[in-house]
């Protein structure tokens, strides 16, 4: 199938570009680290209340980091003038989006893997018992962020003040992800952990809705 082969080729390109410089991964990881430390100054991390806020802070940090990370997603193609050749190279423009959003999801998950230990240490939280489910939540949440983020970065790359515009357009769209992921993560990190399957299903629904919308409308984002 051409969509699959196109996507895997483009995904390979995205990963190669990133792992040559590792610019995105290092900057976003450091950014999340800074935000987590700053949050600890804004609240009092030792207390029991901080435990309640911690999942929300973690997801807020991920959200802010993603709005930095997705800046270069389409901008890079535009600066190097490679977007038109990309469009000519693939039979279905959805492949471009699919490759970019898979790459973005992977980058977000990698950053989260790097940051989780720091988060657990700083906020005195034991992650081990619920780790597989936590990863499922991180995967579905990050996929949702990446789907919406990739679409919005295609829009913002074509506008003025794009660095400001991307978070402005993206963050309100991601409200459902923040609400649900923070609540589900909170349940997992509680002293008596609860797995909220309804929330996990909701995250999957969010991913599917936006992925379908991107599949239908993706081709129009890249028109000249």
């Amino acid at each position: 199938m051409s969509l699959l082969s196109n996507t895997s080729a483009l995904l390979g390109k995205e990963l190669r570009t990133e792992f040559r410089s590792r610019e995105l991964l290092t900057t976003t990881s450091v950014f999340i680290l800074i935000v987590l430390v700053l949050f600890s100054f804004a609240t009092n991390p030792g207390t029991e209340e901080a435990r309640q806020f911690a999942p929300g802070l973690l997801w807020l940090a991920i959200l802010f980091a993603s709005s930095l990370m997705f800046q270069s997603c389409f901008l890079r193609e535009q600066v190097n003038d490679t977007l038109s050749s990309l469009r000519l190279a693939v039979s279905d423009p959805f492949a471009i989006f699919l490759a970019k959003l898979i790459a973005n999801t992977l980058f977000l998950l990698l950053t989260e893997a790097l940051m989780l230990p720091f988060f657990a240490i700083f906020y005195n939280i034991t992650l081990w018992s619920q780790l597989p489910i936590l990863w499922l939540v991180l995967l579905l949440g990050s996929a949702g962020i990446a789907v919406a983020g990739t679409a919005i970065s295609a829009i913002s790359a074509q506008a003025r003040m794009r660095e400001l515009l991307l978070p402005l357009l993206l963050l309100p769209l991601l409200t459902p992800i923040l609400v649900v992921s923070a609540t589900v993560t909170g349940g997992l990190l509680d002293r008596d952990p609860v797995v909220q399957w309804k929330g996990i299903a909701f995250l999957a629904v969010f991913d599917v809705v936006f992925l379908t919308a991107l599949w239908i409308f993706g081709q129009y984002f890249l028109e000249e």
Partner: protein
Amino acid sequence: MTKRILLGTVATALVIAAAYANFFIAPTERTMGVIQRIFYFHAATAWAGEMVFFVCFVGNLLYVWKREQKYDWLGVTCAEVGIACISIVLITGPIWAKPVWGIYWTWDARLTSTFVLWLLYISYLLLRTLIEEPGRRALLSALFGIFAFLDVPLVFFSIRWWRTQHPAPVVMGGQGSGLDPTMSKVFFFNVLVMHVFCAFLIVERYIVEKLRHDVDLLQREAEVQ
């Protein structure tokens, strides 16, 4: 022109009639008192505003599909009128909430999702100011409008299911169902009035947008000569 004047006159007369009905026909609510009369205006504007955003969504879809400028004008018109409505809702809400609940704001599902809705369409208008080329501006803002509208039910249900579990001071379950017959008549009259009034605003704003486009064209022609 005569049709516009007629629509404007009818809309204004209806708004005055609705104000009369709210203050003099609807009975005073037993526990909340006079302040409850803001409900007719508040909730009717919210319904009309949501309807206007739906029309905006339809305009966005039609633009992406047909690429005719009139749908872009419809989109921006409805976004602005919708924001005006929702702003009214967000202002009248706290005015009503303070004496009744004792607070101006609570992070309840309807309030919060209305606020996020307002933010999304403010972003839509901001996006339009930041893209110069008219064709690209129309297409990209239409696409963002579609995504924003799809997001609205997700925002509402996420907040309703995961944020309103705490006992909120909202004791208004089944507002419509428990309404006194006269109150319900007044309310639905208000809903009708606000829809007519919004239709009037949309027509007027649409004409302004069309004129702006014509002026742009003339200016460009003058520059060429």
